[in-house]
């Protein structure tokens, strides 16, 4: 019998969309049965269009701010921009997201849309938390097809038999 991986995906930013999808797709390739329970901001991973996911360097001291273009010495500079400046520049998140997407491409890292597609192809089961769908005023039609809208008990039924259970 195959191993089971249960993931609770709670984050809705471009950067945090990666860990659940990387682990889910890889586990599926290792013949795990995988279920990803998307709740709160994690619901963003199930939106039909994930191109709107953004990354925010604001209040994130762990995030190196480096440019994805130019000579090596330029790329190596870490632009340590104070929060108060970041917060006051309109479109700062959009700019950071554009740069991040360039870096992702340069590094040969898959896009979120591609990774999710690979997960679906590999039969990773995505489930959405119905309570947070209502809480945030989403409609089922905004999400990808073939997902179930469930509650905590349904997730726990799968997670209770899992070999690995992760909260991301």
């Amino acid at each position: 019998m195959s191993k089971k991986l249960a993931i609770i995906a709670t984050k809705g930013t471009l950067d945090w969309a990666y860990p659940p999808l990387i682990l889910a797709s890889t586990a599926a390739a290792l013949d795990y049965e995988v279920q990803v329970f998307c709740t709160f901001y994690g619901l963003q991973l199930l939106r039909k269009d994930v191109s709107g996911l953004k990354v925010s360097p604001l209040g994130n001291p762990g995030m190196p701010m480096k440019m994805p273009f130019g000579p090596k010495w330029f790329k190596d500079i870490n632009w340590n921009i104070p929060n108060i400046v970041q917060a006051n520049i309109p479109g700062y998140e959009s700019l950071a997201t554009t740069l991040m997407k360039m870096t992702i491409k340069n590094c040969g890292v898959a896009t979120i849309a591609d990774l999710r597609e690979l997960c679906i192809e590999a039969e990773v089961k995505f489930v959405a938390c119905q309570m947070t769908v209502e809480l945030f005023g989403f409609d089922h039609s905004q999400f990808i097809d073939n997902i179930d809208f469930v509650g905590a008990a349904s997730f726990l039924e799968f997670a209770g038999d899992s070999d690995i259970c992760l909260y991301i």
Partner: protein
Amino acid sequence: MNFDKELDARGLNCPLPILRTKKGLAELTSGQVLKVIATDPGSVKDMQAFAKQTGNELVSSAEASGEFTFFMKKK
């Protein structure tokens, strides 16, 4: 070494080399060999882990000038 199919995973980063390897193996029959070329340094340990967990055999693993070449025999 003889192989039945070649997979170019150069320039791809985790987890793509593993996912492509899985797909590549799916097109082979038992006993056939998949050659994989990758540049992701993490793929060295990952290919070992993939083989161990899926039962496919990592026949060889070598590095030359920043490129890693793997031969994976389908179980």
